[in-house]
């Protein structure tokens, strides 16, 4: 009587697959239900029961309406949604690409050449602790409120992760791999191109991705503070005149564009990085 017997139950593979599938269907159903519930509660507190003032929270219906109206309507901030979006995108992209083009080689250079590492790194370490946003005021005084300050602030915010990640990526290269290269007669340049950079590539791509997020965030911040065009400006104006619908439309567009950019870069980095 003291011995308990357990029976092993063997479930056929097909059954396991069915079970997994069933669970997945259930989980997706829960996800969709939650989202619907959130939208419903959101609608209930705004349009449904008017629990929150319309100046504090726009209803989902209103947000969708505003989104479509803002496509063609220039009021109240002087530009359509598309114009704002393009204005932000242009500055973010130019600053970002400059940062990648300059930052990645600089990081590699810093890691590969000891003297540069020793000389430049302390200054870089000093400057990188300052978030990009903090530079805005300084740049506005030096370069005025024009686009130049915004390009530079985006550049500054994006260049730091580019440099940092390509630097630590190159530093990750295993000595043994370099020795092997040397033994087979590779010169310094060849070692860099065919050993160190391929090793560092995943890390560099991570840096490039982080930089994209940083530049998008920084352009929004820069536009919140000083600008006359752009998504950040649009939501800031929406706050001034108590139009939460415009703010929410702006936030959604900012989120969607940020998400799309991250996705595109993800695909690119998957194509570039082989063998991982």
């Amino acid at each position, binding site marked *: 009587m003291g011995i308990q017997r357990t029976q092993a139950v063997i479930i056929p593979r097909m059954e396991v697959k069915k079970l997994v599938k069933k669970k997945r269907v259930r989980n997706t159903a829960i*996800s969709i239900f939650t989202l619907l519930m959130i939208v419903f509660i959101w609608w209930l507190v705004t349009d449904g029961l008017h629990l929150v003032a319309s100046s504090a929270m726009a209803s989902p219906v209103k947000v969708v309406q505003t989104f479509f109206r803002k496509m063609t309507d220039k009021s109240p901030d002087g530009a359509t949604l598309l114009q704002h979006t393009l204005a932000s995108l242009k500055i973010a992209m130019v600053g970002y690409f400059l940062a990648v083009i300059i930052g990645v080689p600089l990081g590699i250079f810093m890691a590969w050449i000891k003297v540069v590492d*020793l000389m430049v790194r302390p*200054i870089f370490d000093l400057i990188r602790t*300052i978030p*990009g*946003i903090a530079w805005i005021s300084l740049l506005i005084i*030096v370069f005025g409120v024009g686009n130049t300050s915004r390009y530079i602030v985006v550049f500054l915010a994006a260049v730091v992760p580019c440099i940092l990640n390509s630097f630590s990526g190159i530093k990750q290269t295993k000595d043994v791999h370099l020795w092997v290269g040397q033994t087979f007669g590779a010169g310094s340049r060849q070692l860099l191109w065919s050993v160190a950079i391929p090793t560092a590539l995943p890390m560099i791509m991570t840096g490039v991705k982080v930089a994209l997020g940083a530049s998008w965030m920084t352009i929004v*911040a820069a536009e919140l503070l000083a600008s006359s065009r752009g998504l950040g400006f649009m939501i800031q104006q929406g*706050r001034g005149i108590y139009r939460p619908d415009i703010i929410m439309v702006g936030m959604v567009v900012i989120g969607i564009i940020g998400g799309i950019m991250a996705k595109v870069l993800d695909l690119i980095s998957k194509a570039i990085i082989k063998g991982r």
Partner: protein
Amino acid sequence: MKFTLTVLNDPAHLFAGGRRRVVVIHLGFVPPEKWQVDMRLNQDKATRFQKIFFSFLSISVFILIWHFAVVFTELGNIMPSPFAIIKNFAVSFVKPVGKHTMPVHIAYSLRRVLTGFLIGSCTGIFLGIAMGLNEIVSSIFKPVFEIIRPIPTIAWIPLAIIWFGIGETTKYFLIFLVTFCNVTINAYDGVRSIDSDYIGAAKMLGANPVRVFGRIILPACVPYIFAGLQTALGYSWATVVAAEMVRSSEGVGWMIITGQSANNMMQIMMGILAVGVIGFCLTTLMRVLEARLCSWRERGK
């Protein structure tokens, strides 16, 4: 007797990372087969002395160039000299900038960051682990996160101001948001990264759920959680500066933005200096904490 022979593979390598091979040969009664050849490539390993020396050198060169550029060129019209900034920074500890002295401004900003950060990280760790352990919890919250995450916290500032006014709550909310999102996702990834064989093995050896959690799940998440806390703290600091620049009446961000509107470059530079120094202290503190708590991970590497 020791004799060191330095073999340079290629003189150019001295600059390209200084790759050289050091051959240590013992002369005297040591038979040839016992000659030691030290094959270490002493390339990237800068000595401590070298590091400190070059840091000192490069920073002083940087400051001197800045100083002379300010003194002798037109840059002086808009930019104060670094020495003046440091002097004024020190003076601001006793002489108020605006209503408060520098430490009070810093304390305001720090209080905002730390309050939001503490609430956000506690709830984030809790929810992240719960999401990792339970599929239903994760399928409830995951889509919400997928929607919120791409929106930079800074874009929440106008809405937060409408909701919570221009007081402290707005800043707490923003910092909470940025910390919560980062930490939750990382804690979730941490739980998901655990090899289920470990949990199975522990269960088979008779560990109860509490023990499985304490011995396997929690230790496996800690590095992930710390990575999340680290990024979250950096973002929190940037966010609080942005929030203070948009709307506030004290703090380091306020110092920068009022400096701008008063065309007072000195005040802006002092603000930037404070932001940099405190940001550096926060990340260093976090790194030390991580090294302490995750020492087993470092040892395992």
